[in-house]
């Protein structure tokens, strides 16, 4: 059963009671919340995801989003995130309830799922090959990811690249794409029919909204992809679209530093990382026009991965 088949009343009732069991990629969640914003966010963005009766299913992560105290319900209302009874974060203003759910889910995965090498990077796929997009905030990574998945690329994840330690394949976690500040408007203009939920303002990351993942990406969420490229995007005003090779050694070091659990995996982290680097093309990519960037990526996806450039 898909979440969109639940009526709004059923969804709210389940969230406030036993919880909603939801599958996203390799992980199952049991979410509970009395907050209408959480019900609204899930119904807006997770309609295509599988739900089950939460009282009979195994869930990887049991999470709750509720006001931290009764008093706070009336006075500057807040929301607290609880991972099975533990509060890893401080409460946030109620307006940020939905982004907090997404941040909390990222935390659940990156703190626990050590069966993967988890790199802080977006990842998209075309023709069976994945492009890993690691980049510091402000580099235009989310905008590019959103643009690509609205142009026929498959969304694997916008934040967490999950590399299976046994197979080296990348597993999909196609949750909503987080858009920040100007990129919200850029994507609205790029694709007016795409659903973006209501923005939360004044968060640690500025204004944040989430884009509904494409239906086809969600339907194929159990299909892993082979790593093809690691590309570091950099948006710069008026820059010409340019793809330049970069050193594999440097790329490896960057990925290791930007992995959530590289050091937890010991020598196996090194093995998984080097195996990945050996089979991908590594590039820097600068752009200013989203359409041109997508065209460049499409061209790349049409060429064999192991070119002799690097």
């Amino acid at each position, binding site marked *: 059963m898909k979440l969109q088949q639940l009526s709004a009343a059923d969804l709210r009732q389940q969230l406030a009671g036993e919880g909603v069991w939801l599958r996203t990629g390799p992980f199952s969640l049991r979410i509970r919340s009395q907050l209408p914003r959480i019900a609204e966010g899930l119904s807006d963005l997770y309609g295509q995801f599988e739900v089950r009766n939460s009282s009979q299913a195994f869930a990887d992560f049991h999470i709750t989003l509720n006001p931290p105290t009764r008093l706070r319900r009336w006075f500057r209302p807040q929301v607290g995130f609880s991972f099975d009874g*533990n509060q890893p974060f401080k409460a946030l203003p109620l307006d940020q309830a939905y982004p907090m759910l997404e941040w909390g889910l990222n935390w659940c995965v990156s703190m626990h799922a050590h069966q993967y090498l988890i790199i802080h990077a977006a990842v998209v796929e075309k023709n069976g090959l994945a492009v890993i997009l690691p980049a510091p905030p402000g580099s235009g990574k989310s905008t590019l990811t959103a643009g690509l998945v609205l142009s026929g690329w498959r969304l694997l994840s916008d934040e967490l690249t999950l590399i299976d330690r046994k197979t080296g394949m990348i597993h999909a976690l196609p949750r909503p794409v987080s858009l920040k500040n100007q990129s919200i408007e850029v994507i609205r203009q790029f694709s007016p029919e795409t659903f973006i939920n209501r923005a939360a303002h004044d968060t640690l990351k500025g204004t944040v909204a989430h884009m509904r993942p494409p239906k086809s990406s969600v339907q194929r969420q159990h299909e892993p992809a082979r790593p093809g490229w690691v590309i570091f995007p950099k948006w710069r005003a008026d820059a010409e679209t340019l793809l330049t090779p970069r050193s594999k050694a440097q790329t490896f070091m960057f990925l290791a530093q930007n992995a959530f659990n590289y050091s937890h995996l010991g020598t196996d982290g090194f093995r998984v990382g080097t195996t990945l680097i050996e089979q991908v093309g590594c590039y820097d990519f600068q752009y200013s026009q989203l359409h041109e960037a997508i065209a460049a990526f499409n061209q790349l996806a049409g060429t064999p991965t192991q070119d002799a450039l690097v």
Partner: protein
Amino acid sequence: MHLSKHTPVAAPKDLVSRMLRSPDMLFKFSTTEWDMLVRQARSAGLLARVHYVLAQHNMIEVIPAEARWHFESAVTLAKKQQLAVRWEVEQIRAALSGLDCPLVVLKGAAYVTAQLPAARGRLFNDIDILVPRNLLNQAEAALMLAGWHTTGLSPYDERYYRRWMHEIPPMQHLHRASMIDVHHAILPDTARYFPDPQKLLNGIEPAGDDLPGVYVFSAEDRILHSATHLFHDGELPHGLRDLTDLDLLLRHEAETPQFWPRLVARSEELQLGRSLYYALRYTQYFLDTPIPPTVWHDLRSVTPNAALLSIMDSIFTRVLAPAHASCDDAFSSIARQAAYVRAHWLRMPAHLLIPHLIHKAFVSPYLDDSTPKPA
């Protein structure tokens, strides 16, 4: 059997200790029971240890596919932590090499460096070390020089530690974020019972050939220290994990001839008989640890009377269960408060305790600003 006289009230929903007592019950587990076991074991810090126990029983296959990664991930983390602990201990030894004293590592770090069964699947929060009190300032200075610094405590807590505690405030490494607890005794000076640290230092043994200059307590003292810690510590987020440590230490040492009489005699010498009594009572209750009947007989001078025992049972069968909402009943919260007050009662006299508890209840909650914001 000893416990049959006053069987403590059980926490029937505690799946972790139930499956540790009889792993065979897992063959009949439903999906929802596995769901609950993973949650409770995670809260108790025992996912990796449960995996280890199942491997020992050749029972890994009994874990349903969807639940298995939780255990395997914890094993990955435990292995990495043990490697890291050995390495950190070597760094601490190097940092303290100028001091005229041996480096003694305690608790989890001792089990790892001495390669004891109690290290298996053990997860870590910090590394505990012991230095003689007269070298405490030098040790702190040497650790600071090597990159560890005192973490941000409130001025009240800082003063409390320095004035009354058997350890200085936790030190964290600037780059690696590793935490060290530097002790000069195993209980505060103000405690009802105060085992002489010199007696403990006289009994130390080398941890192992691969870590020269690193020492651990003798087998009996390790067990007594673990017991003391359990029954003098106000908060027990890992109570069941610490009980499983004790269980593994006891089962391991029980193979040595004369172990039990030596343990009881040492507990008397260190004024820790009562702690040992409780430790044995509750490891047996939660984990079916085999304890010879003669031991109970030998401990009769420190055995509490029936009324006290029934109160202690109602407290400790609750606070030592996994720290998960599913293990709580209507009295769990009262039991936790009682354990907290009792621990402090044992640690300091009333004229110190009462102002401290008032500060903790009414002042600290409004100063606490330590939880991180989400990334």
